[in-house]
């Protein structure tokens, strides 16, 4: 019996070694092929590159590429932070934790989750994957959505940036905090009352490879979740960046200056501008401060709407929650955010 076990072990070892050799050989072949392909591409590009560049380098095209790349480069670190948090929630935080932390009734969970947005220091790219993983973890969608909206607008980094951009105007910081929080809570409660689960379509996350079937460790789940979420959200970030760059080229900001006369129009105009420009929530205060032709309320609307609804965010939400959700949710959020900033502006500014 001992002999047979011994033989089995030897066989196993032998096949393990063979696997290793096969793997190494394959890696070598891939490296050689990949290297050849890369060398070929590099040669072609370096020969054709200057010719193509001349054709593509109309100033408008160059500016489009720069803005497009800039939005992606700016978004990647924050997106990665968000997906790290969301993958960690998915892999390491048991469901019952959220059940214990949040009130059972969704209507009560909304304000708790909304206020919890304070703890995620980042811009809006980070909050979408986190909210997605919260819903997967059994958090009431209304609460997760309140968190999604409040986190990028009321975290300390953003509030400090706002106070730097509006020196000597603490009312602006307070108005931003209150208007953003109010809009997030109202959206959460609206979802409790009117939201339909079927609008939400969270994509299946394939955390384990169907082929192996073996149960995987938590770290594997974390890695697979991180990889999937980043690639997925990253693709939609690229879509949003392309949209933002296109609007930036098609609609020059100077056109907007013609609308500064009417206070109502200017609020709506800056609320639309916030959607189109896709300025990250950590910097939008500086942009708002530079829009000096507009009333304080209009600038507040710019800062309240921007972190909640913008083109890249709509693309990210469409990717994470489904298209039918993103359209309805963004439209409603836009209206609620504008209303709440008008009220806050009328009260505080």
């Amino acid at each position, binding site marked *: 019996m001992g002999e047979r076990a011994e033989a089995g072990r030897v066989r196993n070892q032998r096949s393990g070694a063979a*696997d290793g050799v*096969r*793997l190494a050989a*394959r890696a070598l072949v891939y490296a050689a092929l990949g290297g050849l392909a890369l060398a070929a591409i590099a040669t072609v*590009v370096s020969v054709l*590159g200057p010719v193509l560049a001349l054709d593509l380098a109309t*100033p408008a095209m*160059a*500016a489009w590429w*720069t*803005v*497009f*790349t*800039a*939005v*992606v*480069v*700016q978004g*990647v*670190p924050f997106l*990665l932070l968000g997906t*790290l948090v969301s993958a960690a929630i998915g892999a390491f935080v048991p469901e019952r934790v959220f059940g214990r932390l949040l009130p059972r009734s969704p209507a009560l969970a909304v304000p708790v989750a909304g206020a919890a947005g304070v703890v995620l220091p980042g811009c809006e790219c980070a909050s979408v994957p986190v909210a997605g993983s919260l819903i997967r973890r059994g958090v009431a969608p209304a609460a997760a959505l309140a968190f999604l909206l409040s986190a990028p607008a009321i975290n300390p980094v953003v509030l400090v940036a706002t106070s730097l951009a509006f020196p000597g105007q603490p009312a602006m910081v307070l108005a931003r905090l209150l208007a953003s929080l109010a809009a997030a809570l109202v959206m959460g409660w609206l979802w409790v009352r009117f939201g339909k689960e079927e609008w939400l379509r969270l*994509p299946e996350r394939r955390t*384990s*490879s*169907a*082929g*192996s079937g073996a149960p995987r460790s938590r770290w594997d789940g974390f*890695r*697979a979740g*991180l*990889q*999937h979420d*980043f*690639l*997925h959200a*990253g*693709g939609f970030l*690229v*879509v949003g*960046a392309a949209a*933002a*760059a296109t609007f*930036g080229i098609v609609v*020059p*900001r*100077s056109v907007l200056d013609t609308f500064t006369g009417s206070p109502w129009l200017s609020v709506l105009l800056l609320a639309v501008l916030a959607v189109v*420009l*896709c*300025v*990250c929530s*950590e*910097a*939008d205060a*500086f*942009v708002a*401060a*530079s829009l000096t*032709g507009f009333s304080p309320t209009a600038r507040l609307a710019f800062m309240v709407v921007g972190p909640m609804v913008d083109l890249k965010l709509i693309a990210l939400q469409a*990717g994470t929650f489904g298209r039918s959700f993103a359209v309805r949710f963004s439209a409603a959020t836009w209206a609620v955010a504008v209303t709440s900033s008008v009220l806050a502006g009328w009260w505080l500014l």
Partner: protein
Amino acid sequence: MRRYGPAVLLLLSGAAILRISLFSEVYLRYVQPGLRPFLIASGVVLVLLGAVSGWRSARDRANHSHEGHSHAHGPRVALLLAVPALALLLSPPPALGSYSAEREAARYAAQGVGTFPELPAGDPVDLTLGEYTSRAIYDSERSLKGRTVRMTGFVTREENEDDEGDDGTWYLTRLLVSCCAADAAPYRIEIREADAPPADAWVTVTGTWHPKGDLGTDGAWPPVLDATSVKRVAEPRNPYEKR
């Protein structure tokens, strides 16, 4: 190839981020200097993630070579990540220049007329375009008076394109970026007493303040400088205005 798709995309993205942030300062064309450590960290994480992913795929394949395509592969929309990644790796887009500066309304510094801290010593004194602009328009003490200043920016020409006769008016321009290049807005200073270099050329201009209009009014815009010397220079490390 599908099997290695996610690994390749992660490696490409990571390599692109590291190429612009760790191995060069190209990232300054797109974002603020403060983002560099975060970019480098993201690049490292992405490369590691891609390497582990590729290694896992290779191992799974060796272990289960007969189980066909049931494997998890990346979401298809992720392929779009290859576009900016390849652009950054092969030919990074240039910093924004006169095209963008002319499209955006000139930046009106958000402040009222008042006093400013004393100008630093030095002859000429080096200023950013923003500092010069706000002192020229809003300084009730007129601290620029009698001082020689030096500023660096690129050249933009008179915007009126329908105005056939180009009267040679040109501006020293620099874009201010608050977060990323998507929010660039220009500072613009009219340069007199010197011939216009070609548009988009980087120049260092030395000269003296030319007062114009009443302080804080529209008549004071844009600020004017009488140039004593205009020198062509290379594009600075950070092409945008210091914040």
